[in-house]
């Protein structure tokens, strides 16, 4: 019995100790998590805003979103390796084709911003700093709602942080959404920093052309303009014009201006320059830039330079030829992929389809409409790459037999024999005009590459857009580390022009357009006399201002810059312009396509309350 006591007593004590520690076992002490109330701290507040910027870069510059913004318009057709055909043809475009990324991210950000606006005022920051931070939140909330309302029409309008999850939701009238956007942007245009510096500092984290008063004003002008179109309300156009011109008149205050040369706006060194109003940022930092060498996708990868690249190594062969009206590649390529020429994705191409009949018989949008003046207006040359210089050494049509004697290459159907000089010989030239007999050579001075005139451009061979090129990448397959410039200052002029035009003031509309056009006439290679002549040639009169002219001007100025689909929707020109110019979408587009379908996921997941309505036609 003695031994029993010896055992039982300690056991009882052990049990008692364990029981005491029990309560602790059931307590939760998260360490590696960030919980919502963290938004009320200074770093949480900043982090919430940064989170939204990070989501924006998950859209602008990434593939699906980029194609969505230019597909199914007059400007672009599908490249041979297109990845979103329904958005280019509208054939069978349905709610389920909207995978929801854009919608989901927008609402995730809106709720986060509502959280920032709810918890943020408690943050221990100086009032002036806090006001700026909250101004960012308001700007970003308006930013997202503006894209939502333009894309989908009536949308759910949440301005309070959602704490209790709900499976019910409803759509609010467009008018209410616009009121909210205007309210937020009006506040932001006074609360925000006047302008955003190129680089951030400890005192001002919102550098790198984050939102500023200038950005908010520009966007507010555009919002008024867009609402004006919807309601046909002159007051909105006047507002839009006034806000835009106020920004232009005070451009020094806001640190904004146009570069003298259109090409300068796309120089990497000017990415954070005076013409840039708003960016989604990237960098080669693997952590903060989420940079991934060789990445083919990913939320923070800027793949913009690649979508409109054709597979230049595939035809850059000295013996390529035309057979049955089709280009055939033959022989060894004089081009290999390199950093300068970029990674070919072949997703989109400029619309150079020549209409065989109808109002535009014999014309194509790219060369005969938008960029019809390629002499005085420098923007065609500064937008498109049309020449590829050979970069592969040792390519020759001369082959040697077993004895080392030069023999005629059986693949050498064109008969010229020579060896390519890297960096000098042209591999491919895509002139903007027909060259008789091209691809051709001159017997006396053989053109060693291949000439592809517009008649031979196809979904496989076409001029590439060079504005977004990033030559500073290390690997040929690496994504761009340049920021995606979402808003440029030249749009302030075009917004003002469109607003003036709609308000009936064609004089000022022409004046605003001329600012942009005259800048486009400038070429650094011209003499000043030549430039003056070009400026005179591109200057338009008020009588020349039409809606089509404004839309063509927007193509010239913003080709490929994530705007076109919304431009056409805003100006109620989507169906007419697509029918007039886009051969792929013309057979399928219908009037209801001016709104995108609400993602099926949203409709399917609203399981409580009234069914979530879809846009008509889908």
């Amino acid at each position, binding site marked *: 019995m003695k031994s029993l006591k010896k055992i039982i007593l300690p056991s009882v004590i052990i049990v008692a100790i364990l029981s005491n520690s029990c309560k602790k076992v059931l307590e939760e002490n998260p360490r590696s998590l960030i919980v919502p109330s963290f938004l009320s701290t200074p770093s949480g507040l900043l982090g919430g805003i940064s989170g939204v910027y990070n989501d924006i870069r998950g859209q602008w510059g990434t593939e*699906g979103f980029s194609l969505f913004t230019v597909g199914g318009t007059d400007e672009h057709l599908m490249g041979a390796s297109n990845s979103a055909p329904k958005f280019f043809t509208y054939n069978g475009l349905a709610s389920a084709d909207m995978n929801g990324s854009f919608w989901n991210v927008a609402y995730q950000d809106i709720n986060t911003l509502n959280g920032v606006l709810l918890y943020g005022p408690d943050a221990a920051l100086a009032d002036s700093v806090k006001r700026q931070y909250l101004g960012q939140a308001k700007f970003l909330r308006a930013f997202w709602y503006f894209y939502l309302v333009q894309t989908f029409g009536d949308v759910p309008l949440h301005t309070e942080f959602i704490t209790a999850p709900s499976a019910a939701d409803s759509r609010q009238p467009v008018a209410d959404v616009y009121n909210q956007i205007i309210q937020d942007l009006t506040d932001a245009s006074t609360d925000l920093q006047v302008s955003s510096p190129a680089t951030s500092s400890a005192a001002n984290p919102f550098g790198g052309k984050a939102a500023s008063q200038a950005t908010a004003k520009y966007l507010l002008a555009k919002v008024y303009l867009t609402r004006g179109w919807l309601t046909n309300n002159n007051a909105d156009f006047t507002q839009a014009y006034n806000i835009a011109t106020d920004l232009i008149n005070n451009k020094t205050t806001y640190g904004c201006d146009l570069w003298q040369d259109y090409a300068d706006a796309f120089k990497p060194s000017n990415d954070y320059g005076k013409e840039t109003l708003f960016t989604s940022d990237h960098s080669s930092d693997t952590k903060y830039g989420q940079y991934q060498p060789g990445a083919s996708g990913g939320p923070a990868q800027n793949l913009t330079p690649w979508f409109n690249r054709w597979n230049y190594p595939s035809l850059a062969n000295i013996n390529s030829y035309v057979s049955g009206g089709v280009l055939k590649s033959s022989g060894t390529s004089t081009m290999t992929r390199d950093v300068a020429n970029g990674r070919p994705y072949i997703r989109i191409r400029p619309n150079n389809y020549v209409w065989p009949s109808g109002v535009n018989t014999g014309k194509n949008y790219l060369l005969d409409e938008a960029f019809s003046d390629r002499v005085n207006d420098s923007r065609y040359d500064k937008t498109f790459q049309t020449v590829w210089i050979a970069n592969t050494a040792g390519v020759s049509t001369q082959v040697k037999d077993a004895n080392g004697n030069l023999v005629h290459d059986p693949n050498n159907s064109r008969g010229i024999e020579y060896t390519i000089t890297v960096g000098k010989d042209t591999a491919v030239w895509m002139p903007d005009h027909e060259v008789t007999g091209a691809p051709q050579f001159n017997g006396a001075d053989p053109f060693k590459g291949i000439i592809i005139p517009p008649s031979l451009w196809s979904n496989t061979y076409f001029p590439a857009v060079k504005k977004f090129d990033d030559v500073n990448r290390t690997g040929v397959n690496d994504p761009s580390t340049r920021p995606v410039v979402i808003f440029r200052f030249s749009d302030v002029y075009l917004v003002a022009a469109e607003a003036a035009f709609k308000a009936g003031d064609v004089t000022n509309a022409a004046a605003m357009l001329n600012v942009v056009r005259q800048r486009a006439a400038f070429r650094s290679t011209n003499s000043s006399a030549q430039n003056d002549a070009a400026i005179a040639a591109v200057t338009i009169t008020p009588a020349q201002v039409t809606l089509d002219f404004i839309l063509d001007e927007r193509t010239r100025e913003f080709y490929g810059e994530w705007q076109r689909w919304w431009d056409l929707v805003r100006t109620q020109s989507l169906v007419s312009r697509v029918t007039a110019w886009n051969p792929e979408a013309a057979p399928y587009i219908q009037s209801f396509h001016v709104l995108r379908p609400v993602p099926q996921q949203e409709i399917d997941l609203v399981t409580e309350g009234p069914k979530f309505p879809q846009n008509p036609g889908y």
Partner: protein
Amino acid sequence: MFMKVSVLQNEQLSNRSKLLAKRSLSLVLSVLLFLCFTQATSGQNLRVRGHITNETGQPVPKPSVVIKGTSNGVTGNDNGDFEIEAPGNATLVISSVGYGTVEVEVNDRTSVSASLSSVAGSMNEVIVVGYGTQRKRDVTGAVASLNASTLRQVPAPNLIAQLKGRTAGVDVVSNSATPGGGGSIRIRGNRTIANSQGTSDALDQPLLVLDGIPFSGSINDLNTDDIEKIEILKDASATAIYGSRGAGGVILVTTKRGKTGKPTVSYNAYYGISSVIGKLKVFNGPEYAQFKQDAATYNRSSPGTTAYPLTAAEQSALAAGVSTDWQDLIYQNGFTTSNQLTVSGGSEGVQYGLGGGYYNETGIIPNQKFERYSLRGTLDARINKVIKIGLNTLNTLSYSNTPGGAGVPGGTIRVTPLANPYNADGSLNLRPAVGSIDEPNIVSPLTLKTNADGILAKTRRLRTFNSLYGEVQIMKDLRYRINIGLDYRQQQGDSYNGPNTFTNATATTFAQANANVTNNEAWTYVIENLLFYDKTIHEKHKIGFTGLFSTQKDHNQQSSFNGLGFPADYVQNSNLALANSVTAVTPINGVPQNFLNEQGLLSLMGRVNYAYDDRYLVTATVRRDGSSVLAPGHQYFTYPAFGLGWNISNETFMKNTSFINNLKLRGGWGKTGNQGVAPYSTLGALSTSTYNFGQGSAGQEAAYTVTQLANADLHWQSTTQWNVGLDFSVLKNRLSGSIDVYDQNTKDILLPYDLPPSNGATSTTKNLGQTKGHGLEINLSSINVQAKNGLTWTTDLNFSFNREEITALPGGKDNIGNGWFIGQPLTVIYDVKKLGIWQTEDSVKGTLAAQTSPVQFPGQVRVQDLNNDGKIDQNDRQILGNFQPQWEAGFTSVLTYKNFDFSFVIHARMGMKVLVPYVTADGGAQGFPFFMQGRANQLKVDYWTRSNPTNEFPAPDAGTDRFLFASTLGYVDGSFIKCRSINLGYQIPSSILKKAGISSLRVYVTAVNPFIFYSPFVTDGFGPDPEGNGYGGSVSSPTAGGSVGVGGTGPNSGGNTNGSFRQVSVNANNPSTRQFNFGIDLKF
């Protein structure tokens, strides 16, 4: 007199010093001992006392003890004790009903003990039931037992592979065929509606308990050679003692321990060769060229053109007659070796067991392997009459290396056959796609072989799983036991992908080489305080009580870092400081890679067993669990259960029905749960990321977004289950078996619930929804032949089916967005239905024109317009099938003749779908990118052309990487009947072995996965093996709310998962292997 001696001996031991002082007494004792000794050796009768126990140390009541060669014998008492007069050189033959027979030599001892092994399947078999053992006849729940020899009929590195088709109601689905790969086990189906594979596994997989202590983590940590037997608790009346973790069933693993007796040394080993079961049929060179040409011909958006023509290199290869089969070049023979050395033995007071094992399996993909070292020891010691202590320590160290992962075949079959694997100079043709758009995306798969330094995907795992117990016999019938489980797991993941390798094709310079180091530390402690009370009153009333108080705490912490840019391949990830940059890994698909999680569980349990006259049995249990992961105020829940049993054959009215040896009816009801919520789920969370404002470091910021909403009401999910079973044994036990039917209902399901995206947060966890399931399980064992000449033939057959269905959802409506439908199984295929291919005559007849949207053309997939509105859209989706087998069966046959034994195992899983991602495409990473585009090589399918108007696959189209309704092609009948293994063994006669001091030696050969009897998947040419090797991965149908189209590739771009995570898929992953093993079992 003997009594006295033994007492004195005890004193002698404990009071040795005193004794030495009393030399005179010692002298007397020596004389006495000498007398005893001389008496004994004279062959005179001794009074021998003994104690007989079963394999778990419990007394065997009323053992029969006979002196060998005589008819003299006695029967022991209920506590297994006996006394017999026997000569000192006699041999005692000890037996009991339901147990085997053992012989014990007296060797002049006066006290002997023996342990009897129960005859498998007999009602005396002692089975582990959780927190104790019971004789099978006393069990009221649905419990299945499998012993080591049964499991070993299928040699495998882990238990999961061994369990396939072995017992009714246990469904094992493989999801990997890489070395050391696993699978999922479902006992009686799924209960939980979930929205990710991880959650589903956390919620529905059974609880694994190893020697009484919950065992979590990798099943590979358990060396199959260490398993003595397993018990599977299937119904709630049996599993309710595990309360909040019992809903998925419980698998109790008992490992081998030392036994009383002279030391035995055993050595078990096998060596095997494995090869792929088959290859995927792909286009050969000329077929590939034709395929590309057809893709241009049928290019819908720009007829006659293609961005993926044969490159110049391919054209010359075609002309030269090159047609490379890359799979042949990659697959190699794998080798397996398994070695296990065990020593065990013990005296009455102390039993020990020591074992060491080494397992090594190399894969059929170069450099893939799984290697495991294991070391274990058990010790059981009786300190004195009342105290017993023990230790079981199980340690494993395993390495697996899976360069290229499971997806090597998928990448390999893409590579053009029109390329020589080697250049003229013998070097590797590094980029076979040279000149094509995919040139940078494809590096020769042969780099897996040639550049072993360049590709590393290693996991090193160390585990030490220790359980200690102390037992105190407080009174005759009252026992206290403390179990302490100390489990520590450490895992390191190492990866490196050098430039110009198969796994890092787009990287061309060392600056782009990437590496990762991931370290995970996890520990669990469990402290269980148990009280047992067992009492028999008036012979007929047997009462047992078990009480438990336990505490468990789990800890899991992980750090993961990526390095980018390394000086050379040989460095691999050995020194991240050599990397150009190092970053901590951000969450992947929302799953954190750096974290610290802890959770705790507090439990109280009581169980009462009552048996009357071995005829009427009652079991009642109640458990109360408290868990930290649930919201305060909702942390506790109580799980009651009852079981009833009736041993009908023990009734007097059955005494005369001699053909029935045993008949027992069982019934039970119980409530169980699961706590499958991640820690901190009740708190809500922000997703974390990063952003840079401008290029300077001052603009680098942490980035947060709200993605998960808090839920302060989370409480327990519970499953209630009824089970009725019948155990029987007839015809002199020649035919025995059991039949069970059950019905279960689960409610308050802890549902990670996808919200309308306009909520902002994409999901939250709520207690929502109800499911039910019911099913039938039959196990039949028969001794078909038991001939005098030594021929025995036995068979075991099991058959089962389970039907699961969702019975209630929030709002009372189907939840299409999450893929949940009331009245349907938990995971279904919801999509438009493929009718065939649009034919040329459809455009003539006008059937094609009747469909206004989308406008389609001959050669494209034709689907059903369910509502006949001329448009194919979301309203035309319908349920097309599910992943729940209609039925499942297993068949084991064992034939023994003299020293030979021969057995085989057959497994059938019938009537469910599998997904085949590599015959679908959505333009993204799901499916098989560029399927039917003529851009990459692919499965050779019967595709449409004007001259081949098939209805199987559409015409290739170079114009799109997401042809219309691609998802509809991937739903395939996954039924199969397979032979799992065939074994042939030979026991070397002991007469030969005795001289070598070997007590037994068996040699055997085994064929694993020798053939497939039936599989429509294989017959239709989809691939070599219908068994799953992954989950999901198929295209979520664009029409079904899938991921095609707009948007970036951000975390939310995946759109709707439609429950695809639980869809069993057969992807172009590592194929399963066929193995031939040669083995020996040696005992000294």
